Each structure stands twice: as C-alpha cells, then as structure tokens.
C-alpha cells in the first residue's frame, strides 16, 4: 500500500460535492464581490474560527477562563496542554455542547456559533471527533459511514435516500482508509477501542466538514498508525481547517514539521499559556513545567 493510493482515497473524498449542505459552494477561499448571506460562511477576514474571551465555569470552577483563539481558513492548528486545561471544554463550546458564561464564538465572520444548536453547527461544516470514541454501536460499520455521508439531513431527504455508485465507492474508499473493510458489516459496538477511534475518524471525514475538531485522534494507535494519521491530516490541510488536540508530542511534531512556522497553542487553566512554533513552546519554561515535564 502506498501513500499514492491513500492520497487517491483522500482526493476522492474531496471530490464528493455533497448534496445540500448549508454552504452550497465548493470554494473555500475568500469570497470577494459576493454578498454575504447571514448564516453563510464568510471567510473574508481569513479566520474560519474565532473565539473571543470565552469563559466557562462549573459551580464556580473556571474550566475556561477568558480564552481567545483564532484559526485561519485552511490552517492546521495543534493544541496541547495539561490534563484539565480546558481543551475538550473548548470543543464543547465550539460544537454547541456547552454554553459559555461569556464570550463570543464565530464561524467565519458572520456565523455566531453561540446561537446555533448542535446539529446546525454540524451542518454548517464543523465536525468533531470525541475524546472518547462515540459511534452508533448497534449499526454496522458501513451504516455508520453511510449516516455520516455528506448529504441532506432532512427527514424527507433521508426517506428518499438511495446510495448511488459514487457514494458507495466513497464509503468503500473510506473503509479501506480506516482498515475496517473486513468489518464493514459488523456492528460497530463490537469493535475494539482503537477500531472505534478509526471509525470515528472515518465518519468525520465522510461528513466532509470545513473545520475538523479532533480530540486526541491517535490515542490508542500504534506509532506507525500515528504517522499515517499525521500524513492524512496534512493532506487535508489547506482545503480543510483542522484543530487537533493531542498529548502525543511525536504526533504534534509530525504535524508541524512540514512548515516550521506552524503555530501550536498551549492551553493551561482555561486560557492560552503560550502560542508559537513547536520549538518555541517546547522551549518555554512554563510549558515544560506544567506540561512536558523533565
């Protein structure tokens, strides 16, 4: 198996236009001269995700404390930080699972995420992989992917839905990519932990979101798989924006090595502790103390 084939798979994934997502256009660049509809993704200012002064507290404990963060369109941003720094909570805020006590969260420059419900956020193009793998346990692996497939999400559309050849190919390619081809007809609940991780990544890719949020995607993978996953993510970079949370520094290294200027963000106690290239943050005394250890 060569990286070429893999790239081919990823390319096929990209080609799939998707029937009726909120944003009908395929272009992801800045949209000069176009009237921006409210509710449409507007990347005029270059940022696809913009968090400003977000605070989340639980019974007085500030899990996120005045956090501001901005992700550019097409960027791959790595986020690291100690356990309990608020990384997962931040994703909860972006995806609508948790409502912040204060702050702003925008997708593009026009879509206020805090006003949308979870499924609306998902359908405008934000996909998420959870820290704890969550798949539809009673459905087969194939059906899991089918449901994630980019396609209109309405009741009527799903009643009328028929898989066409291209979509079938796409699922096939994905099964290949996540090494679950043999398990396509097995119920997902029977997969091993790592296999579920893969399936969830596969589902996320099937959704073809503009912004991928990945919470510890390589936990439980072998080193080799970790490398391959890094390659996969790098191949998505540019066309997609990615936010990757990981504790595996080798993986972060692999994700950042193609571009020495790529930013890594370190969260600590609910706010940004440091931001910079990997080398910079690794050299930061404070980061070493609270996170990397000696």
């Amino acid at each position, binding site marked *: *198996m*060569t990286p070429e*084939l*893999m790239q*081919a*798979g990823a390319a096929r994934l990209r080609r799939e236009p998707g029937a009726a997502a909120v944003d009908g256009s395929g272009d992801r660049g800045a949209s000069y001269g176009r009237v921006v509809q409210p509710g449409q993704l507007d990347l005029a200012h270059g940022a696809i995700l913009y968090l400003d002064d977000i605070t989340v507290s639980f019974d007085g404990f500030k899990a996120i404390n005045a956090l501001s963060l901005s992700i550019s369109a097409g960027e791959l941003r790595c986020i690291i930080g100690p356990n309990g720094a608020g990384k997962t909570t931040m994703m909860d805020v972006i*995806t609508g*699972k948790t409502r912040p006590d204060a702050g702003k969260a925008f997708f593009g420059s026009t879509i206020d995420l805090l006003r949308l*419900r*979870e*499924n*609306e956020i*998902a*359908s405008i193009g934000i*996909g*998420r992989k959870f820290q704890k793998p*969550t*798949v*539809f*346990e*009673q*459905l*087969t692996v*194939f*059906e899991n992917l*089918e*449901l*994630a497939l980019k396609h209109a*999400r*309405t*009741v009527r559309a*799903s*009643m*009328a*839905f*028929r*898989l066409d050849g291209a979509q*079938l*190919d796409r*699922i*096939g*390619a994905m*099964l*290949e*990519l*996540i*090494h*679950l*081809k*043999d398990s*396509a*007809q097995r*119920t997902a609940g029977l997969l091993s932990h790592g296999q579920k991780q893969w399936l969830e990544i596969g*589902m996320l890719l099937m*959704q073809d979101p503009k912004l991928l949020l990945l919470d510890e995607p390589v936990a439980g993978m*072998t080193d*080799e*798989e970790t490398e*391959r996953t890094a390659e996969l993510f790098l191949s998505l970079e540019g066309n997609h924006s990615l936010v990757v949370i990981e504790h595996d520094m080798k993986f972060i290294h692999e994700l950042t090595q193609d571009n020495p200027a790529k930013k890594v963000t370190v969260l600590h106690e609910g706010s940004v502790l440091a931001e910079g290239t990997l080398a910079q943050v690794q050299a930061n005394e404070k980061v070493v103390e609270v996170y990397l250890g000696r």
Partner: protein
Amino acid sequence: MSAVLPGSPARSASAGAGVAPPVTRLLSPAGWLGVFVALGLVLGVAPLLNLVVPADSAFHLSEYALLLIGKMMCYAMCALAMDLIWGYTGILSLGHGVFFALGGYVMGMYLMRQIGRDGNYKSDLPDFMVFLDWKELPWHWALSDSFVATLLLVLLVPGLLAFVFGYFAFRSRIKGVYFSIITQAVTFAAMLLFFRNETGFGGNNGFTDFKRILGIPIATPGMRMTLFAITGVTLVGFFLFARWLVQSKYGRVLQAIRDAESRVMFTGYDPLHYKLSIWVISAVMCAVAGALYVPQVGIINPSEMSPAASIEMAIWTAVGGRGTLIGPIIGAFFVNGAKSVLTQWVPEFWLYFLGALFILVTLFLPAGIVGLVDRLRGRKSEVRA
C-alpha cells in the same frame, strides 16, 4: 499490497470494490410470500369460512373468532407502532393508549351519530347528552356526522396531539424514562378527563350500542367481514410501510438516535425532526387501529387510556421481539391469544400463566419470540429489521 495503512488487518484487494450496500429491497421473496398469504387469508379464506361454510361445520369461522382475530389485528397495529418508536428509536411511550383511544373515540362519535333516533330517548342527540340535559351538540361533535370528516379526524386529532406534545417534549430534550413518565401522565390525565360526564364523551360508559356504519347495519355478517378485511389489509399495509421506513436511511437515523443521540446531532441531523416524525407516525398508526377496533368490538371507553393499557402495548412488542417488525405482530397475537384462551380454560389461574410467560420470555428469550425463531434457525444477528 493489502492495506491502506500499515498494520491494517484488511485483506481485500482493492479500494471501493467488495463493499456490499445494505439490503435495499423491501422484502425477501419469502417475505413477499408471507404478505400475500396473509392477504389471502384475510380477503379469501376468512370470508369463505365465515360466510359460506355452514355454522355447524367444524371449519366454520365463528363470529367470536372473527372478533377475536380482528381485535388482535388492531392490537398488532399498536404493537407495530410501538415498535417503531420504542424498538427502533428507543423512545418508550407509556401513553400510546391515548392515541388508540382518541382514534376510537373519533370513530365512536360517528357511530353514535349513526344511531340516529334509534336510541333510548328517540332524540337526534346521543342518549347520554339527552340525559345530561344538553340541548344541542357541543362544538367538538360538529363534524361527527360526516364519515369523510371522521376518517380525516381519526388521523388529525391524535396526530395533532402527538405533534404538539412531541414538539415540546422533544424540543425540551426530554428523554428516556422522563419521556415515558410524562406520556403516562398524559394518558392518565386524558382518562380522568374522559371519565367526567361533562367532557361530553359519555363518561365511563363511553360509547356503545352502535347500530350502523354508513347507514349499513353493523351487526350483519357482511359488515363484520368487511371490517375484518379492512383491518387485515390495513395491518399488512402498515407492516409494509413500517418496513419501508426502517429500511430507508431514515430508519437507520432512527436507530442511530437510539444508540447515541448526541452523536446524531454532531453529525448534523436534527433529532427533533426525526423523533417528531416517527412519533406522529406511530401515534397515527395507533389511532387508525383504534378506529378499526371500535366498530368491531362495539365499545370505546376511557379505560383504553388507563396506564396499564399502554404498558400492555409495550409488552406485546417486547414479547414478540423489539426492533423487528414481524415480532410485535406476533407478540400481539400471542399475548392476546394466550389471554383469551387462558381466561376461559383457567379463569382463576390465568394470571399465573401470563405472568410466568412474561418472566420466562425475558429470561430466556431476550430477543422475544422472533429471537427464538432466529436462534432455532441458527441465524446470526446480522439480519435485523
């Protein structure tokens, strides 16, 4: 060259190929055969045995048997409806009796009007209204003299209740047992409401002593047979409809909601719409069952809305096999058949048998009767739906 990424256990040769899509045809050939046999029984054999074969023949299908089977077919529709919402979507309703009863009441209102002046008090108004000194029909009886309106209202009234209730409940993200309990509260409240004479539905006596439907006397073999046949066809129709639903991607979204609703949301589906639609569909199916039940059984009263009546629907479904479509139908026939037989054979002890049956089914047939059949046939779990 066997895998996309190193370390993959995948063994197949090329990408894209060799992946079978899920079964998309509505029924297997055997399934279709079963459907046609069922239709044949309902439309051919039963009328023959009931109307043509003489009453003293051993093959005569008695009116009692007809009633019994007709009733069980109505119950089977309820169980099917229950299965769509519970078995497939994972929402346990303990209040489906209210939809069944509402369908029945709408039909009952029409049948009451059909009595005309043949009642005890020789009035245009139903007897109980005369008795309550009401001088004219209350507003909610306005359309009850039209058969067409009745048919529409059978769908609309329960459908609307289900829609309004479901909309608020699902929008508030009421789930699991919280949902179950409020559905129970709804049916319980409805029962108390209908018990009141002032509500205008005949109090606890409800409606009975029907005489005609569409001007044709009800208590004739021909009319009975017609109702029976319509019920049978409706049941088969509901089965095919349900089958189509659960085979579609829609059905898989429902099952996904059952497994992990939040994941469904994060995948971009709005569970509200899905849950609401299946909830209303299920309620309307129950209502249709109720409407068919009333002219056959000859009475509708608020006890159909008692919490226990709704729980029983869940029980038929579970006994037959939740999450399959034929299961609930079998369950409804099996449990009610057992009830009818046992209350006659061992009137004082039948509850022991029925109780034991429920216990044994849960302990030894976790997938219901259908699960047992599957197991005996040695089939695996991959055949679902």
